C-alpha cells in the first residue's frame, strides 16, 4: 500500500501566452499562466488518489504532465524509479503503455471515424499486445470486461451513449494492460445515474487488475467515495493531502474547509454551516505572493502574505500547506 510507483516532485508549469508586439515594445514578457506552482505528490501502488479543487486550479494540467502531454518547467516525475522526462526517455513508448489516461469528454477522446473494434485493435496491435490472430478475440474480451455488447465492435462512437463511450475509453486504456490509470473527470460529463455505473466498473476493475488510479473530479461526494487518499489543489499548488475519510470528515486547510462545506447537502433541513468565501477566484495569470489563498482566507495574517507555506505533515491528519493549520483545524 505504501510503495510509491509514481513520485512527483515539485513540478512547475507555465503556459506562455504569446508575446505580443506591445509586450515587445514595452520590454515585458508575454502573459504567463502559472498552472502548476510546485506540486509534489506520491502515487502508491494499488491506491486511488483523488484530486479535487476549483475549476482552473491545475488538475488537468497535472494529469497531463503525468502522461507526458505537457513537460513541466521544473521538477521531476519518476515512475518506477525512472525519470520520465530524462533525455531519451520520451522515445520509450512503453511508459505510455504502462500509464494510461482517460479524458473528461468521452466523445472527443474517441476518434469519431473509428469503430470501437478499430479503436481497440489499434491499441493492441501498435503495442503488440497480442499476435495479429488473437486480436479479435482480445477485443471481444475487452468489450466483455467493460460490459459492452459484442456488436459494439462494429459501431462508431456517436452510436453510443455517454456512459458507453466512457466505457470504450476505459477498454482502450485497459487494452494495453497499464499499471496506472489517470482518470481526468472521467464521469463529470455523465448523468448521476450513469455516473454510478461507470464508477462501479472502475472500482471493480481496480480490484481485479490491481490498478493504481489518479482520480480527478470536482464532485466531492464521488471523490470521497472512490478514493483512498485525496489531494486538494488550489491555484496550482497542493494545499492538503491525506487519507480520504479523515480529510473529508475533518479538513485542515481553510480552503478545504470552505470547499467541502460549500457542497449542498441532500437533506433539505440540513442547511449546513457553509463557509462563504469572499472575493473572486484569483486567476493563475496573477498568482498572489505568499500563500495563494490568503486573499480569500478568514484566518490570513500578514505573514501569510509574504511566506509561501510548505506542505507539512500534521499529526493525525495528512499533510497541509497552511501556516495556521493547527489553529484552523482546531476551530473546524
Amino acid at each position, binding site marked *: 500500500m505504501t510503495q510509491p510507483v509514481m513520485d512527483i516532485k515539485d513540478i512547475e508549469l507555465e503556459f506562455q501566452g504569446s508575446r505580443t508586439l506591445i509586450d515587445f515594445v514595452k520590454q515585458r514578457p508575454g502573459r504567463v499562466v502559472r498552472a502548476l506552482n510546485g506540486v509534489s505528490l506520491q502515487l502508491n501502488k494499488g491506491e486511488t488518489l483523488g484530486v479535487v479543487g476549483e475549476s482552473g486550479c491545475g488538475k488537468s494540467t497535472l494529469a*497531463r504532465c503525468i*502522461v*507526458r*502531454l505537457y513537460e513541466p518547467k521544473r521538477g521531476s516525475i519518476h515512475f518506477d524509479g525512472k525519470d520520465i522526462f530524462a533525455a531519451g526517455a520520451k522515445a520509450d*513508448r*512503453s*511508459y*505510455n*503503455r504502462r500509464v*494510461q*489516461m482517460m*479524458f*473528461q*469528454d468521452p466523445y*472527443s*477522446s*474517441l*476518434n*469519431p*471515424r*473509428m469503430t470501437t473494434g478499430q479503436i481497440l485493435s*489499434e*491499441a493492441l496491435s*501498435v*503495442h503488440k499486445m497480442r499476435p495479429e490472430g488473437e486480436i479479435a478475440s482480445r477485443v471481444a474480451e475487452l468489450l466483455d470486461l467493460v*460490459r*459492452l*455488447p459484442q456488436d459494439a465492435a462494429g*459501431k*462508431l462512437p*456517436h*452510436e*453510443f*451513449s455517454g456512459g*458507453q463511450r466512457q466505457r470504450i*475509453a476505459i477498454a*482502450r486504456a485497459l487494452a*494495453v494492460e497499464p499499471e496506472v490509470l489517470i482518470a481526468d473527470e472521467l464521469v463529470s460529463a455523465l448523468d448521476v445515474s450513469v455516473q454510478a*455505473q461507470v464508477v*462501479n466498473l472502475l472500482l471493480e476493475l481496480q480490484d481485479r487488475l490491481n490498478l493504481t488510479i489518479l482520480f480527478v473530479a470536482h464532485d466531492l461526494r464521488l471523490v470521497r467515495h472512490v478514493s483512498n487518499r485525496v489531494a486538494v489543489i488550489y491555484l496550482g499548488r497542493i494545499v492538503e493531502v491525506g487519507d480520504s475519510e479523515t480529510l473529508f470528515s475533518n479538513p485542515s486547510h481553510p480552503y478545504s474547509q470552505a470547499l467541502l462545506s460549500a457542497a449542498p447537502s441532500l437533506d433539505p433541513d440540513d442547511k449546513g454551516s457553509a463557509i462563504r468565501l469572499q472575493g473572486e477566484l484569483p486567476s493563475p495569470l496573477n498568482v498572489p505572493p505568499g500563500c495563494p489563498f490568503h486573499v480569500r482566507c478568514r484566518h490570513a495574517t500578514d505573514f501569510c502574505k509574504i511566506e509561501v507555506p510548505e506542505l507539512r505533515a500534521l499529526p493525525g491528519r495528512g499533510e497541509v500547506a497552511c501556516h495556521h493549520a493547527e489553529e484552523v483545524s482546531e476551530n473546524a
Partner: protein
Amino acid sequence: MTDITALSAEATIPQKTRIELALRKPGFLVGAFIIGVSAMLALMPGVFAPYDPNLIDYVAVKQAPSWAHPFGTDMLGRDSLSRVIFAYTVNMQMAILATVFAMTIGVIVGALVGYYRGVADMVFGRVVDAVITFPFLVLVISVVAVLGPGLINMYIAITLVGWVYYARLMRAEVIAQMGNDYAGAGIVMGYSDRRIIFRHLLPNAITPVIVYWMTDMALAILLGSSLGYLGLGAQPPQAEWGVLIAEGRNFITTAWWLSLMPGIAIVLTGLGFSLLGDGLADLLRPRG
C-alpha cells in the same frame, strides 16, 4: 447485480443512415445527377456527340440550331453540340487535375504544420500571407506566362498557387481537431506522430477540405475557361468551354448559340459541383 444483463441490452441511439438523409435533400440529388451526367459525357464523349468535333465544313458555317445540328455550327462549320460535349472531357479533367494535386499537397503540408506548429508554422504563415496578397488570377497568369500557355502548365500554375488555400484550411482544421481529446489520447496511447496525423487527425479534419474541393473544382473550371478565353489555357482546336465562348463571343448577336451553349455547360457544371459540395458537407459530418 442486476445491471450486467440490463447493460448489454442498453439501447444505442438509433441513427438514420446518413446516405438516406442526404438523399432526401433535393439539392444534393440534383448536384449528384449533374455531375454524374457530366462525368459520363467526359468519359465517353464519342458515344454522345453526333459529329467529329473538329471536322471543318467550309460550306456549313454558323448555321442556326436545327435537327441536324441541335446547337448549330460554328464559324468553321463544326458541330457546336459535339464541341460542347467533347469539351466535357477537357473541362472535367481541368476540374480534377487543377485541384487534386493542390489538395494533396495542401492537405499534407497543412496537417504537418498544424500538428507540429513551431518554426515551420511561422514560415508557412509568411508564405500564406505572401501568396494570398496576390490576386489569384494574377499569380496564375504570371506562372502560366512563365511556363507557357497550355493545359498542363495551367495545372502546374494553379497547383503552385492553389495548395496554399488547402493547406490553410487543413491547418486550421487540424488545429481545431487537436482541441479534441482523441489526438491527445493517441499520444497517451503511445502512438507514433505519423499514425496520429494521418490515421486519426486527417480523416476527421478533411471534411471541410473536401467540401471546399467541390467548390474549387467549379472554380477551376471557371478559371480554366477564363484562361482559355485569354488564350492561356486549352489549345485550339481542342474544344473547351472558355475557348468556345471566346470563339462565339463575336457572334453573340448573330449566332448566339455559339457562346450560349458552352455558357450553359459551365454554369450547370459549376452548379452541380456546388450543390454536391453542400450535400457532402452534410453527408461527411460524423454526427447525423
